[in-house]
């Protein structure tokens, strides 16, 4: 490893030193570098590299790539997640990795970050072959990862979260002032402002992501892995994130980012590697491909269309909500005076930055949260009805967080599928196991859940497949009103199309849908009407024909307020 022997106490000087070293090496003055002397083995390997390899993988400046993966394979019991993956990431670039869910992107990145070890194949960082037995090894080699699910401790402060594990300390006592200074400096280089002493629990999603990035930079990372960083952001936040990343790249950092949003990928990255079914399909530049070609590389076949389709909205009101408000002790109105009606055969989209009352709205509609105002399902007032009564009246729910609200992770798939349908599948209090299993198998085949059978525990499934099971379970209940919160979050293009198709078919058969989604494309493509929630209130109602992502974004961030 090139940074061997430079484990200075303060990580930022190390960061600077490494960058300086990189700059000096780029100028070809390797031998003059007095700051850091690389291990001899590295020099030898570099000098003895065959010409062809150097041409193929190194840039014109003659520097080794930031990361090289050769023939990486990684299997888990029952599945092969990665097979013969090879790719090269040039230093100082944004390199995207795209692929469907379950294609093996996350597995690959976890391998690179040392969270597990490959079964075969080699990893080289800056031209040196490395073996990471834990994330600490990867961090030491200058690789940092921002996970899809943020790894932050809510009750700790921003500062504590960032320095954890690499605290500047004198005799074991944390030097908070020094830490705050370093973090503020890093934040400035990233172009963001952050209050280091506020608890993470008080931050929004975008800010949390920045804390994660700072956490990685604080450890001196010069290669940054971002696992689906934009999945949780609104368009404006996405722009800010990319702006931050460009600044980093200009300063010499390498960014590897995983995504399946092709527009973003084409817009920001200089190279794109496509992974399908655990192996690399190819690496392209954005100039070489169109969005459609890229998508076809990803899926390996013709693409489904997320085009809007006209539908016939019937007159019959299935869900009517009047003046609904939710408040909790000591909190301002979480949902404030919301009214709407959804007719049979209609999809009402709800746009909004997460945490602006969508969750509480759904909870209140389900009867999980105390609320004022009235709710009627099919003309029947259920304002004071229990969750079960509302369910029996025909309401069904695809939850925001599949793991927390939707699944028993350690239970088998068929038991998970049985949840909420116990009455349907039991007699005299005994569950008809055979029927429950058969129902689960049907959901598995209808929604293409990738699993060996219905007996595996839910945690063994990838996130996308878990989501397919949850959606499938909900749809198989034949609801009259569907509350769908992020129904396609984290699932691949093929399954996305299947879920859309299911929702559309059910809609055409008279289902009323409340669709909460962060994916504006999905929202505009599916909905018949869109409302925007900001700080608990509905601030706009639009037709998807008039709404652009930019317009929605400005309502979502409160920059613009419309009269309803």
């Amino acid at each position: 490893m090139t940074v061997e022997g430079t484990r200075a106490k303060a990580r930022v000087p190390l960061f600077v030193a490494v960058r300086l070293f990189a700059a000096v090496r780029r100028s070809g003055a390797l031998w003059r570098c007095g700051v850091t002397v690389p291990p001899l083995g590295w020099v030898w390997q570099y000098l003895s590299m065959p010409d062809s390899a150097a041409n193929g993988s190194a840039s014109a400046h003659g520097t080794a790539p930031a990361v090289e993966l050769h023939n990486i394979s990684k299997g888990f019991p029952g599945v092969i997640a990665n097979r013969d993956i090879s790719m090269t990431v040039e230093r100082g670039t944004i390199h995207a990795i795209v692929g469907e869910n379950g294609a093996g992107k996350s597995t690959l990145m976890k391998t690179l970050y040392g969270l597990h070890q490959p079964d075969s194949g080699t990893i080289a960082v800056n031209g040196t072959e490395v073996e990471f037995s834990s994330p600490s090894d990867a961090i030491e080699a200058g690789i940092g990862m921002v996970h899809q699910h943020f790894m932050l401790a809510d009750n700790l402060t921003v500062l504590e979260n960032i320095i954890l594990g690499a605290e500047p300390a004198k005799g074991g006592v944390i030097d908070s002032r020094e830490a705050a200074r370093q973090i503020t400096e890093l934040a400035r280089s990233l172009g963001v402002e952050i209050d280091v002493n506020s608890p993470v629990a008080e931050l929004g999603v975008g800010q949390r992501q920045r804390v994660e990035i700072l956490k990685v930079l604080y450890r001196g990372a010069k290669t940054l892995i971002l696992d689906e960083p934009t999945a949780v952001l609104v368009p404006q936040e996405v722009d800010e994130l990319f702006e931050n990343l460009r600044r980093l790249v200009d300063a010499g950092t390498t960014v590897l980012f995983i995504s399946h949003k092709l527009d973003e990928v084409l817009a920001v990255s200089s190279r794109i590697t496509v992974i399908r079914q655990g192996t690399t399909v190819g690496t392209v530049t954005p100039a070489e491909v169109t969005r459609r070609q890229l998508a076809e590389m990803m899926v390996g076949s013709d693409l489904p269309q997320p085009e809007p389709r006209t539908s016939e909205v019937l007159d019959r009101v299935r869900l009517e909500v009047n003046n609904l408000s939710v408040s909790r002790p000591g909190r301002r109105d979480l949902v404030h005076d919301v009214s709407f009606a959804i007719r049979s055969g209609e999809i009402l989209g709800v746009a909004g930055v997460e945490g602006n009352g969508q969750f509480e709205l759904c909870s209140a509609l389900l009867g999980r949260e105390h609320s004022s105002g009235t709710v009627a399902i099919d003309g029947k007032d259920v304002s004071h009805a229990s969750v079960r009564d509302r369910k029996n009246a025909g309401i069904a729910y695809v939850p925001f967080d599949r793991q927390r609200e939707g699944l028993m992770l350690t239970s088998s798939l068929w038991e998970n599928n049985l949840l909420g349908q116990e009455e349907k599948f039991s007699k005299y209090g005994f569950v008809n196991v055979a029927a429950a299993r058969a129902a689960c198998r049907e959901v598995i085949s209808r929604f293409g859940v990738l699993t060996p059978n219905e007996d595996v525990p839910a945690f063994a499934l990838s996130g996308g497949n878990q989501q397919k099971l949850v959606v499938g379970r909900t749809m198989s209940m034949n609801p009259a009103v569907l509350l769908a919160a992020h129904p396609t979050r984290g699932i691949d293009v093929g399954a996305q199309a299947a879920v859309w198709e299911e929702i559309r078919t059910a809609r055409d058969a008279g289902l009323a849908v409340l669709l909460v989604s962060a994916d504006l494309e999905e929202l505009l493509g599916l909905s018949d009407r869109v409302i925007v929630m900001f700080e608990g209130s509905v601030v706009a109602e639009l037709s998807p024909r008039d709404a652009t992502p930019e317009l929605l974004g400005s309502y979502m961030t409160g920059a613009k307020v419309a009269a309803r």
Partner: protein
Amino acid sequence: MKLTGRARLLVFFAVPVALMSIVRLWSGEDALTSSDTIGASLRLSVPILLAGMAGLWAERCGVLNIGIEGMMIFGTWFGGWGAWQFGPWVGLMFAVVGGMLGGLIHAVATVRFNVDQIISGVVLNLLAFFGVRYMSDLAFVGQPGGGVSQSPPQTSAIPRFDIPVLSGGEVFGWKSPNILLNLEERGWFFVSDLAGILHGLTHNLSWGTVIGVAAVPATFWILWRTRIGLRLRSSGESPVAAETLGVNVIRLRYLGLLVSGGLAGYAGGILSIVASSYYRQGQTAGRGYIGLATMIFGNWRPVGVLGGASLFGYAEGVKLVANDAISTLFLFVALAAVLLVVAAVVNRNTTRGIVTAFVAVIAAYTYLAIDDVPESLTQSLPYFATLVVLATASQRLRPPAMAGIPYRRGESH
């Protein structure tokens, strides 16, 4: 209404003292704020305080510790045995080691083998209870004054002292004045009450008690100012995040439970060495559980635990020193509750207003209507107070996020 540092001090200390003074002058019961009562309260608070600290260390590192009672039992036994054999200081050390043994058992069960944390704690309590009985059978039976349920009496005790000038302690043979006692005896409003409280806290102090109270600043400093403290707290808040940053969660949980056990053991040692002069079965009397209540009461923070332990210790102290004065405590509670009702009205907090008004009415009725308060009722007063606090403040409590959830290395689904 957000209070700043000095205003908080005023509200949480000066106002109760003033209320106490009013109650004292009204009812004529001097014992409420006498130095004797406060001294006894301090002695009785310390074991509860340490039990609370033991809970705090365990839950901050991510493990529930129902077994504090059992660790305290180990502490009383090992402390009693060590003090009988080798003198009180060695006894206290044995108490700590005995408690740590309990902590280690809990750690191996919950951290290494992922046994349910509640079950392991309960088993530990049972194990301690019957284990020390067996050991007593081996060590104490047949000794003069010893038996299966108690140890022979100890021959020496931990020295006690008075703080010079304030409470008449001796400095190099010079008998200094006793300013606080002097003030206390005047019977002035507020001033004498304050002097009585301070005198109680500064005279006839055992070194064992002083060391015990020092656990509060020490815990705060270690957990919130040092590197190891931050890592330990992160193991309780988000072990997955901690591990991805190279923090050894498993090791820190062992450490946290060892410290937890040591503190609980010391609490037991105080009971069998400082508060009495022999080990007796059942000496802990459920203080381990009360300690857990003070931990929740104190929002998992050292100073808060100190506040909770003081409350329980004071109620016990009044009962011990001035049983007759107990009924006046209800008057105090009633007055305090009225103040809280006013605060709730100002803050427009309906729920809290109703709850505290209810408490005020009950307390006032108890004071006025019942001449002879049954002991069981007075004993339940601190629990009652804890329930009220939990009912009104639970939204602001911030327990460690992952306390109670087993963690396996490298597992994050």
